[in-house]
């Protein structure tokens, strides 16, 4: 059949001059980016009002790939930077796309405090179980006994259960999907974009070249095969029981609550102060 050359329908959301992206074959980061821009497309999002922020790591390059205003911060500081952006201009949609090491090791403190404040920034975390960009060291989500370049005898550290952490810290919306759940992930990102307050999605993502091959999953297909086999959708189940194990990856939406966002509370306060001052002056 004759194929006319047609541009990819989502290409307008990407910076063509930055493509192809740097990610390895089978890396889940591309899928996260794909689902993210797909969600933007379905939402008909105003790209001029969107700021994409990321930290350091493979997926930290996302900010450079989206055709929006974007900022690539220092390691772990994307949430703190985004807090400044969102507060300074609450009209902006501020989305962070970053990794598990960036957000939960070096940036862990910023994450819990942003969730506690319920500031309206949206965090999409690709969890690939290790530090990919620096060559595969153990991170805060590396499973027990997993082999990495800095746990050559097997990891002895207990990993974070990210959805439990986010829920406990006070996030308004918490979900977990894998890169195989592209449809639900896209819908979930739409929900995240539309909700008030601090929202978080963990995307369990394959890192075949760096993590998988040391852990008996030599290809992206094998890692995706693990997700297919182990994933169970349990919406609104107890995030405390959602630890990721070799046999079981609980996915779904865990938290979806209504709570005033920090920026709304703060700007309401400003309005009240101004009202009082006006009364005094009149």
């Amino acid at each position, binding site marked *: 059949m004759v194929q006319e050359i047609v541009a*990819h329908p989502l290409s307008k959301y990407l910076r063509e001059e930055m493509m192809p992206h740097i*990610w390895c074959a089978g890396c889940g980061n591309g899928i996260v980016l*794909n689902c993210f821009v797909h969600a933007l497309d379905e939402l008909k999002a105003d790209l001029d009002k969107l700021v994409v922020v990321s930290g350091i790591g493979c997926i930290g390059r996302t900010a450079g790939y989206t055709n929006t205003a974007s900022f690539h911060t220092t390691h772990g500081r994307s949430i703190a930077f985004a807090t400044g952006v969102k507060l300074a201009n609450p009209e902006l949609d501020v989305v962070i796309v970053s990794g598990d090491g960036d957000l939960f090791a070096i940036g862990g403190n910023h994450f819990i405090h942003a969730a506690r404040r319920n500031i309206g920034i949206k965090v999409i975390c690709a969890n690939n179980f290790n530090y990919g960009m620096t060559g595969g060291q153990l991170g805060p989500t590396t499973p027990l006994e997993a082999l990495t370049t800095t746990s050559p005898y097997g990891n002895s550290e207990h990993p974070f259960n990210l959805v439990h952490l986010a829920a406990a810290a006070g996030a308004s919306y918490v979900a977990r999907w894998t890169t195989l759940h*592209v449809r639900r992930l896209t819908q979930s990102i739409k929900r995240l974009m539309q909700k008030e307050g601090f929202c978080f999605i963990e995307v369990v993502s394959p890192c075949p070249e760096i993590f998988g091959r040391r852990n008996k999953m030599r290809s992206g297909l094998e890692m995706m095969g693990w997700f297919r086999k182990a994933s169970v959708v349990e919406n609104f189940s107890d995030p405390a029981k959602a630890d990721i194990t070799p046999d079981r990856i609980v996915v779904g939406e865990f938290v979806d609550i209504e709570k005033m966002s920090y920026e709304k509370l703060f700007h309401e306060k400003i309005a009240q102060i101004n009202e009082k001052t006006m009364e005094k002056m009149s």
Partner: protein
Amino acid sequence: MPERIKHVPLDIEKVKPPRAEIHLIKNQCKGCGYCIEFCPKKVLEESEEINARGVHPPKIVNEDKCILCSFCSAVCPDFAIFVLEKKQEETKK
């Protein structure tokens, strides 16, 4: 056609089932194989050819079977495949 479906839909003349037009951007493919593996209708296969990145991009072996679910497009990390609906005029030909 499976045994149990014997009747012919009344509007078969008017309503054409949507047909797919699969687009591959071959040189963008990194050869992860997700589109091939996760296609519910097995429309794609690994090709023999080698693209600019030195991998085998998929080839379309059965476009007629495509149900336009676009899972291949959604799961592609490299924006190298997408599916459009064929225009009805074209299917009449």
